[in-house]
């Protein structure tokens, strides 16, 4: 049933995520242009629109099908609360993880096709990556390789935990009778996303002078913590929805 739940949620999100991927691919094509202004003027608005549609996709998956218009149909399906929650988290993670990878490719291409890393808002990450690459010594090469190889897993774990958090917040706030639950959930979700994006480069800049190797244990610990957090939050959401789906 889990497989069916994933497919159903993918279907629910597709309406908005097809726009997100379309916009992402347009930005990708724009980053092939060796023109600073094309990158700066067109890429940022397109990315903002893509962000809006990705939130809309999450709204459909996490709210409309649970508490909104589609909830009654959804409740008639033979899914347990566990299938439902896990399916939603996996489907949303699959979409956003793919989008993150596309984002990463855009950053790399922007760096390669322009004179500097200025053509993209993700310039701090690019700069950090190039700085750490430029300063590597023989020992660092192995650490950097392992860090890079584990990076997709960290992105996956962090995306899954953020999605699990959003779903948990929406369900908890709504069940506590907060009519503006979804709004608060999105505000907290957006704030966290923004906060992590702002803090992590500063943290990396502080840590980088100490060498590259500390990032490897840090990365593994972060990955384990994020995976554990996702599991706990899924369990809490599952328990809260048991009365609805396990009937």
């Amino acid at each position: 049933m889990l497989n069916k739940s994933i497919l159903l949620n993918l279907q629910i999100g597709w309406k908005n995520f097809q726009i997100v991927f379309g916009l992402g691919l347009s930005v990708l094509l724009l980053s092939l242009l060796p023109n600073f202004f094309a990158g700066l003027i067109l890429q940022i608005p397109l990315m903002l629109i893509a962000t809006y549609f990705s939130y809309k996709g999450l709204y459909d998956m996490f709210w409309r099908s649970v508490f909104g218009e589609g909830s009654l149909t959804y409740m008639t399906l033979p899914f347990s609360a566990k299938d439902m929650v896990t399916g939603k988290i996996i489907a949303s993670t699959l979409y956003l993880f793919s989008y993150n990878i596309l984002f990463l490719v855009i950053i790399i291409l922007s760096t390669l096709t322009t004179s500097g890393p200025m053509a993209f808002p993700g310039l701090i990450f690019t700069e950090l990556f190039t700085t750490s690459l430029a300063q590597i010594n023989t020992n660092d090469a192995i650490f950097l390789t392992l860090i890079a190889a584990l990076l997709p897993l960290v992105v996956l774990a962090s995306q899954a935990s953020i999605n699990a958090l959003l779903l948990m917040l929406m369900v908890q706030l709504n069940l506590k009778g907060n009519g503006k639950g979804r709004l608060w959930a999105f505000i907290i979700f957006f704030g966290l996303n923004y906060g992590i994006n702002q803090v992590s480069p500063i943290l990396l800049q502080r840590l980088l002078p100490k060498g590259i190797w500390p990032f490897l244990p840090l990365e593994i610990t972060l990955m384990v913590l994020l995976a554990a957090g996702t599991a706990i939050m899924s369990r809490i959401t599952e328990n809260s929805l048991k009365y609805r789906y396990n009937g």
Partner: protein
Amino acid sequence: MKHFIKVHILLCFGVCVLLLCLLAGTGTYIISNKILREAAEVKSLPWTMPLTATYHYLDFGQNPDEFTAVVYDEEDNDTEYTLDIHGTVLHKEASSNRVEAGTNAYRFYDKETSLYGLVDKKGNTILPAQFSALDFYGSGYGSGEKEGVSMILDTKGNILFKGEIGDEILHVTGALYFVNSHDNTIFDCETGESLPIDNRYHAVWPAAEGQYYAITENDNMVFLDDDFRPAGDGELYNKFGVRSQGLRYVEKLKDAYYSADSLPESPTLEKGYMDESGNMVITLPRNTLYGFRFSEDKAIVITSNALKCYNLQGKELFSLKGDFDNTDILSMETETPGEMCYTEGYAPVCLEDYGEGGKFGLIDTKGRFVIKPVFHELRHNSNGYLIAAYKDSYGILTVKEGF
């Protein structure tokens, strides 16, 4: 396939993530190794002073085996070091706001008023800080600007010539100054005489010993003789380089003369090296962007898609594939971060525009790279030493023992 993905969606997703991990790891490993190999190659070069990030800028000093290094400070308290070829500090001093202006005079800068003045060796004021610009040129004379009025002064503080508001005064050479006003003149500080010259000149500069050139309308240039009249037939040029070994790179406007009433609408440019008599002895292709000065009987020429080397007879010795389009960076020989000329059989070159990320390497007389193009700067002096900038570090290389 679609059915398989639907049934095994988690498995497919997992495989994709693992492939991504593998790709990221492999890519990083390849890039890291490439960078490390390059760093090892750079380290193995014949350094007399190994690369160091201690200094923010390194330049050749006044003596052939001395170098000047600067450490910049955020509060303008820069420190200047004099180094030997091994990087040993010979002398250290805080950069002062004083610049030598003559045998017994120093120009000083007042930070509070942002104005310049003149003091003697003991610090006694010769001219108070009242000048928005003040420049001395070693001949004991200088030009300054005070409240919009340009003037020519000596190092004792005497005003030799005072222009009117809007006049511009440019140093030509020695004691000669060009006064750009309603009636252009050349002022001789030693005799105090003013020689009236053509009003259509926008600027007059020295071109070589005893020769001058003027910037004219449309930013064209014309060579001048001793009495500042157009030399020869007054041929017009778009660009020219430094004269060396009797030849100078020029871009000449075909059938365009200073004395003519009007210029051809879209004049053809004849590019090449001109001898002292004004004859074009080496003709270069139309896509030439610049020709560096001749040294050791060879000159390096930049075209839009190649770097070429010519001998004195105009024979192309070799050609390397390049990609250039920014002529501004290459037009000023003294401002390039690596003048592309031969010294002791080697020349620093880059195969892309410097401003677009081009990097400098060192080639031999056959056009083979003996040092790969990895340096942001590579400048050499006639003594066989090279200043190299790699990432954030500076070092000194020697070419004396060859490669």
